């Protein structure tokens, strides 16, 4: 037999390589499934070699992992829970679920740091610093993800006050200060500092996400995802464990890039998102609602307009997800196609609550790939489109982003539905969108409102089209 350090390190090496290849393949449509599998296999290998071959004191006689019964029980219970939840969950609730899972990972990192801290009597400064960082980042990632989950699930509202920016700054300075103090005078701490840091990081996570508006949640989830990766990497530093370091850092940097891409899509800086001066408050774009009247359209008129058009574009948004209208939408699209109408979907990169959210939903409803146009492909064909149907999207079609410098989202690229010949906007009410900004699109001459639940409206539209 080979000796255990060798088996352990080879296992970790293979695991790391599989993570890298997995991530690589996850970023290409053709290989994404395989990439996910490979990364999963890498994880299983890393777990198994740890269970079998991890050596606490490489110099001395082999002492492997103890308490195997506890570990296997925890793994079994967690596997069942994780599996059940992910199989049962509705596709529309996916963003919440990712946020929830992410929070658990953060909690695990914080817990490890706490146990490690309480079970050892002395640390050198470097180890202690790493431990504190893992604790703080993991802790805030946990509560932050839970709040993001609550917001997406509609259980937590937006609470914003300018004071919170200062409170957050205080938390940040406080935790840095306490870490510094703890490192400078290791004798003065006696176990309490870690608990204080834990408390602060948990509170910071809450205060960090609380004031950020719903429209920015995709960015926040992505950011918290990278935090969890970094926390895992710091926990890996504690044990000099390469697979944890590489895995964690890969996620940290990949999450950061994704976050930046999302911010770019909204034409805002990350700092601007985090400080949260826009998410909850309307700013300049508000206030014109009272004077203008949006025109409604009846179901029959809408059906006729679509059925006799040459080209129809559907712009989905979060309203589609909330109403679970993806199947009804596909139904309607097929009916129009049967009547010879050319139908395509225009997908804004940050439509919904996560990047790619709309793509996942429409894929679930079997909408063919080639029908999904990305924003840059959809905009040039907009002026040859007869009817645009906006299904529960708002801010991503707000022309104020292009022509109203006072609008808080001025400069954000949008789908230019106002260039189409007609525009039907499906909405539940005249309330402004998630970002709280009034949308001048609704009051344009070519725009007509169709109020009601998106699924309900689409189903009714379909039966109207059938009876034509």
């Amino acid at each position, binding site marked *: 037999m080979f000796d255990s350090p060798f088996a352990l390190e080879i296992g970790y090496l293979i695991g790391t390589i599989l993570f890298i290849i997995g991530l690589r393949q996850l970023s290409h449509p053709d290989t994404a499934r395989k990439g*996910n599998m490979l990364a999963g296999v890498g994880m299983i290998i890393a777990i198994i070699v740890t269970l079998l071959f991890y050596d606490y004191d490489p110099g001395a006689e082999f002492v492997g992992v103890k308490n195997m019964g506890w570990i296997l029980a925890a793994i079994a219970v967690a596997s069942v829970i994780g599996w059940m939840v992910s199989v049962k969950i509705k596709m529309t609730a996916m963003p919440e679920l*990712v946020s929830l899972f992410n929070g658990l990972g953060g909690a695990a990192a914080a817990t490890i740091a706490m146990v490690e801290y309480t079970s050892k009597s002395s640390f050198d400064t470097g180890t202690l610093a790493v431990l504190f960082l893992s604790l703080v980042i993991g802790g805030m990632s946990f509560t932050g993800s839970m709040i993001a989950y609550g917001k997406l699930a509609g259980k937590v509202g937006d609470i914003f006050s300018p004071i919170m920016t200062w409170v957050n700054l205080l938390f940040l300075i406080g935790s840095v200060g306490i870490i510094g103090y703890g490192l400078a005078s290791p004798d003065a701490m006696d176990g309490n500092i870690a608990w204080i840091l834990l408390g602060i990081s948990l509170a910071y996570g809450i205060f960090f996400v609380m004031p950020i508006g719903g429209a920015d949640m995709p960015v926040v989830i992505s950011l918290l995802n990278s935090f969890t990766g970094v926390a*895992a990497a710091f926990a890996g530093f504690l044990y000099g464990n390469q697979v944890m370091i590489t895995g964690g850092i890969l996620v940290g940097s990949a*999450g950061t890039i994704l976050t930046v891409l999302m911010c770019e899509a909204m034409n805002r800086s990350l700092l601007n998102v985090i400080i949260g001066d826009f998410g909850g408050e309307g700013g300049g774009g508000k206030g014109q609602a009272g004077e203008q009247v949006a025109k409604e359209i009846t179901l029959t008129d809408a059906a006729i307009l679509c059925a006799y058009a040459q080209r129809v574009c559907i712009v989905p948004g979060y309203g589609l997800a909330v109403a679970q209208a993806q199947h009804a939408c596909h139904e309607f699209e097929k009916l129009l196609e049967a009547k010879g109408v050319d139908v395509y979907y225009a997908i804004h990169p940050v439509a919904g609550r996560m990047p790619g959210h709309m793509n996942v939903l429409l894929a679930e409803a079997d909408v063919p790939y080639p029908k999904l146009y990305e924003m840059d492909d959809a905009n040039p064909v907009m002026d040859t489109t007869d009817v645009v149907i906006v299904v529960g999207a708002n801010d991503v079609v707000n022309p104020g982003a292009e022509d109203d410098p006072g609008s808080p989202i001025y400069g954000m690229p949008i789908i230019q539905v106002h260039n189409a010949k007609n525009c039907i906007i499906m909405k539940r009410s005249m309330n402004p969108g998630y970002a709280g900004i009034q949308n001048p699109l609704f009051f344009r001459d070519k725009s007509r409102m169709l109020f009601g639940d998106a699924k309900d409206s689409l189903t009714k539209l379909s039966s109207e089209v059938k009876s034509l």
Partner: protein
Amino acid sequence: MEEVMTFFLENRIFIYLLIFAIFLGFELISSVPAILHTPLMSGANAISGVVIIGAIIVIGQAESNDYLSLGFGFLAVMLGMINVVGGFAVTNRMLDMFKKKK
């Protein structure tokens, strides 16, 4: 200061690893089509469940009568494992839906 220097010297291989991994992560992700953003985020999230290795190490060194460490270790293993299993399963489910279209 001396401690910082010692720490750096002792861990320089890991610090190199850290820096290479950061750049590798950037490179791997920087050209992703928007349709894959959600599955990718979810898959990356599952990989961050690698923290479970640390959880196993923590609980694996606890004395069998140290119920505090055992309890928290158990909790950490569970949290990490839910992250891993749930993360990969959810990602797979999302990607399954793309596959049908081909």
